[in-house]
């Protein structure tokens, strides 16, 4: 079964993940900001072969080149817990990845807490380094999968100064 991925900030989740017996702290909720009750997530295939592409899609939309910490959870687990997941277009200049995106829809505050609890107990927390992200972005631009002018100015400058694109 595929996974659903969300970019997060590790520092917000660390006490929650380290101390599973304690009540869920409120900080992780800052990483689950919804729009009209929908939460944006990226779809990662069960063999994870598109993980690099998803991370590139996330990084291509950022204002600076940086590490990408994230949490992944099984798609089926969210469905089992009654979350409704729909296809939606991802906000990224990497057009080939835009369809690898989903929304969890119809969330209210209580369900958002349920979702955060699932992430902390069953999520897989990982991170791509700044260097790896830089490499992925350069590969995408040089492979003509991503237009350099679609990157934010600081990201373009960062890659150009290092003669990567």
């Amino acid at each position, binding site marked *: 079964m595929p996974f659903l991925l969300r970019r997060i900030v590790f520092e917000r989740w660390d006490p929650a*993940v*380290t101390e599973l017996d304690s009540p869920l702290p409120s900080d992780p909720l800052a990483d689950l900001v919804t729009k009209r009750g929908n939460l944006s997530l990226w779809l990662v295939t069960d063999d994870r072969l598109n993980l690099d592409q998803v991370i590139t899609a996330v990084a291509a939309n*950022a204002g600076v080149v940086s590490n*990408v*910490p994230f949490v992944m959870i099984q798609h089926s687990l969210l469905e089992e817990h009654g979350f409704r997941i729909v296809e939606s277009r991802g906000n990224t200049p990497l057009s080939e990845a835009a369809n690898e995106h989903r929304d969890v829809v119809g969330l209210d505050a209580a369900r958002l807490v349920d979702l955060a609890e699932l992430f902390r107990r069953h999520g897989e927390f990982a991170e791509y380094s700044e260097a790896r992200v830089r490499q992925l972005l350069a590969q995408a631009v040089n492979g003509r999968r991503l237009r350099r002018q679609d990157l*934010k100015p*600081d990201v373009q400058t960062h890659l150009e*100064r290092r003669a990567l694109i």
Partner: protein
Amino acid sequence: MTVFTPTFAGTQPDTGSGFDILGVLRRLVELNRESSSAATGTLSDRQQLVASTGLPLSHRVLRLADAQEALLRVFRLSEPESFEPGMENEISSHMESLVRRHGEGLVQALQLLYLTRSVDPSILGEALVWLGRAEDSSTRDARFWLLVWCLYRGEPSVRSSAALGLEGLNDDRAAFYLNQRARVEPFKLLRARLERAASELTS
């Protein structure tokens, strides 16, 4: 492997001049905090400090004070909600130029701000990340030792940012310290970050 002893920005404390440099610097931090707007007032306060200590304020101390002022100016404009991976902010935009302009003085000023508890840990953390990522060969060693020193601080957010800064600095000497810290790190995700950074620096 040399055993690391945390010192002032990785160098021995300046005790040779025969006066409490850290005390003077702490007072400078206070003066700068008190006089956030008037530059001339700051200079006058500094002169008073010199008079009160009866000691010449060395060029090095003045440079340090200038670096500290520049840092505080950027920090005041920073919005902590923008301190997220991938988000541009005042610190990410200015840290490299600050490092180039102020050299090692900036590294020492940042450490001083930490020691005197003059900066919110979240702001310090963001500064450490971008201190490591700045491209400037002349300050590389000073930045390296400050970031290593920060790996052993009490605040998890400072340790976490130091790990990212060391990764950005891309100095494989950091792997030893990252692994050493990881062995005693109580926080799970931070431990994973330390181990990953160490692994990537040696691969």
